[in-house]
Structure formats: C-alpha cells, structure tokens
C-alpha cells in the first residue's frame, strides 16, 4: 500500500467521511469541476447506512432503505468524477495553504478540506455496559435485531432513532420496552402514535438505566425512576442504546474551534475557524441532524470550497 500515492497531486478538495454530508459535498464539488477525493474508513453511508428505513427523505413516498439511498448517493458522486478511497484517517493537517489528510503511510494533499466525519452513538456509561457489548448490549438494531427472535428487549432513548428502532425490533422480539428519562417522547408525532398503538411496545417513563447485569450474557437491567428514586429490575435479553450521539472530532481538536460538546463551530456557511476548512453534517453545531440537513451542508461546503479555490488561485 506504500506507493498508492506516487504522484504529488494536490486536490482542490479532500472530503473526510462519506456519509450523506460527504457524499453530497463530493457530488457538488466534482460536478463543479473541482478535483475531488473523498476518504472513508468503511463503506459509504455513515449512520444512514445502518438505518433500515428512512421515511423523511423527500422523493421517496414509500421510504427508502438507508444502505440503498447511500449507495445511490455514492454512485452519483462518482459519476461526476469524485474519487472515493477507503482508508482510516489518523491525522489531519489543516493549517497552511496545502492541507494534508493522512492514513498510515498514505497521504492526500488538498487546497481545501471538508470535514464530514459525522457522529457516533453515545454509550449509556453505566456499570456492566462495556462487558456485555455483544452479549446483549447493542447500538445497532438493524445489525442485531434478528438475534432476538421470540425474546424480550429494551430500547433506551426517546428520540426518533429510539422509536424507529423500537418499532423495527417488534418484528423479532415479543416485547419491546422503551426506557426514557422523561414522561414524554421527543420523537416525531407519527412515530409516537405508531409506538403507542403497538401492542408489543411498552414504556418505562421517567426512568434511567443505572446498571447492566449478567455474566457474559445480559440478564437484567437495573432501572431507576428519576422522580421517585425507586429502583426496579427489568429482565430482558437485549438492550439497544439510542441516547444520542457524540461528534467524531478527535482528529481536529486543537485545530478548529469546537463547542464544549466537541461539535465543530461553523455557521450555515460551514466555514470553520480555519480558512479553506469547512464542516458539513452531524459534526457541525446545528439544530437538526438529519440526512437532508447533512446533505444540505455538503452542498454548501462544496460551494464554499469552490469559491475559496477560485479566490486563492495562484
């Protein structure tokens, strides 16, 4: 792999991460004639590729499978000439005129960088959780739901993801208990209605998980009612955690401005604190994190990169 980059090509734009933000940025950048490389550690799609059905992306009245939508986005970007490379980026040099993306001994140089590394699911952070990952604790219902045929599971969280996945899990499990720290859900009304009307979906309101118990295999969760302080045990075979996300910004810490939660500080123009460096998608400070808002960021970031390249032409 050492001589993958024998040339000293300098790309107009390097995009780090190939979720909806990165893929859209690649499409717009390549289509506007910028030489574009996108580096992704796994396969295109990011979190959206692990979502079994996306119902709120316009143009798909019957919904669209996450992996399918993402594969189409990738095709579209590649059609216009974006180069997609699979590599695990371990360093970013964002200062200076020529910026660098590094992965082991590989290196890509570019005039502009679009940060689109997204976010990853947050853990519960309670005793027993780490030990039982793979023994009943999961962060991906699409991946692991089928292992719970005829079993009881719990979902922790009250947002869209939690409720979408809880409903998905009813295909396999006999009972799905949604554990939520408040007395009402944050999820969209249509999802709430579906969950409330589903005979397999139960709710543990005002409740948090304080520990995950079991020897190698999950046996039960300890729940605490945040109003009364009362602790109860919930016997389940699986628990799926959807309590939010953390931004994937460790590589840019100390280089671009981050907010206290680690999100990249950039406005709707996606401009970060460094010239020529743009932030698109879930890792940016913003109000609504969805496939479509990530895609929108990608388009804006590519447009900003184009302007930057034109203004700084030698």
């Amino acid at each position, binding site marked *: 792999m050492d001589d993958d980059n024998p040339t000293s090509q300098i790309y107009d734009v390097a995009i780090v991460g190939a979720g909806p933000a990165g893929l859209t940025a690649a499409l717009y950048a390549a289509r506007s004639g910028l030489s574009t490389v996108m580096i992704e550690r796994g396969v295109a799609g990011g979190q959206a590729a692990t979502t079994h059905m996306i119902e709120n992306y316009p143009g798909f009245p019957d919904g669209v499978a996450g992996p399918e939508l993402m594969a189409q986005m990738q095709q579209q970007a590649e059609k216009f000439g974006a180069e997609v490379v699979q590599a695990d980026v371990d360093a970013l040099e964002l200062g200076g005129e020529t910026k660098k993306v590094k992965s082991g001994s590989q290196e890509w140089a570019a005039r502009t960088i679009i940060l689109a590394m997204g976010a990853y699911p947050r853990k519960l952070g309670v005793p027993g959780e780490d030990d039982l990952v793979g023994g009943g604790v999961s962060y991906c219902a699409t991946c*692991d739901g*089928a292992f719970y045929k005829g079993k009881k599971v719990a979902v922790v969280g009250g947002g869209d993801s939690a409720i979408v996945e809880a409903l998905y899990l009813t295909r396999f499990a006999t009972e799905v208990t949604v554990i939520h720290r408040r007395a009402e859900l944050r999820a969209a009304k249509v999802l709430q209605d579906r969950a409330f009307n589903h005979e397999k979906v139960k709710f543990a309101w005002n409740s948090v998980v304080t520990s995950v118990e079991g020897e190698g295999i999950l046996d039960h969760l300890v729940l605490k009612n945040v109003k009364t302080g009362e602790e109860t045990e919930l016997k389940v075979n699986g628990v799926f955690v959807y309590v939010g996300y953390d931004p994937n910004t460790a590589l840019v810490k100390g280089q671009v401005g981050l907010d206290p939660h680690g999100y990249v500080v950039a406005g709707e123009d996606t401009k970060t604190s460094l010239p020529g460096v743009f932030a698109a998608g879930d890792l940016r400070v913003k109000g609504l994190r969805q496939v479509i808002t990530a895609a929108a960021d990608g388009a804006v970031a590519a447009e900003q990169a184009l302007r930057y390249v034109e203004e700084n032409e030698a």
Partner: protein
Amino acid sequence: MASISQVTDLNFDSEVLKSGKPVLVDFWAPWCGPCRMVAPVVEALAGEYGDKLKVVKLNVDENQNTASGYQIMSIPTLAVFKDGQVAKKIIGYMPKEELKKRLDPIL
C-alpha cells in the same frame, strides 16, 4: 488474498475447529452496515498475517446453528479459534491497527 472463503454450519468443524492453525471467523450478515465496514479490514488482515492465521467468514443468517452455538448476539463479531476453542472475541468495527493490537498477543 482477494476474497475470503465462507464457512457454514456443515463444514465449521473441519474448517475451523479442527484447523491446524488459528482461525479468525468473521461473523456477518448482508443486512449489517458495520459488517461491510469490517470486510475490507479483514481482507487486509488476511493478507498481512499470511500463513500465521486462517481467515474465513460465516453468514449468521444462513448458519444460525453455529452463530447461536457461540452466542453471537451482535455483528460484526470477529472470533479467533485456537485448537477448537474461542481464544478471542472482538465485537464491532475497529480500524486495522487497533485490531492487530488485540490479535497479536494471541497469535
């Protein structure tokens, strides 16, 4: 090594448990996004470890007996078998260097 061979419920015993050298089994399924992320890493590992490690894949959807027998409840799971026993289970995606750090001590 371009493609990794698939094992099944039927040949798991001969291909994995009775193998003369350690075997890394990639438990996966077509519906699993992170499994597709792991696949290229597993291929790269197979190339790098060469003769030291045999690398195979098992589709948990089509081979539920083996998957449930080894209590696979989350995929991707990478399991290393030595002399017919599970020597290591690694769950979820991680970069290649991180995987090697976990595999090296047992190989």
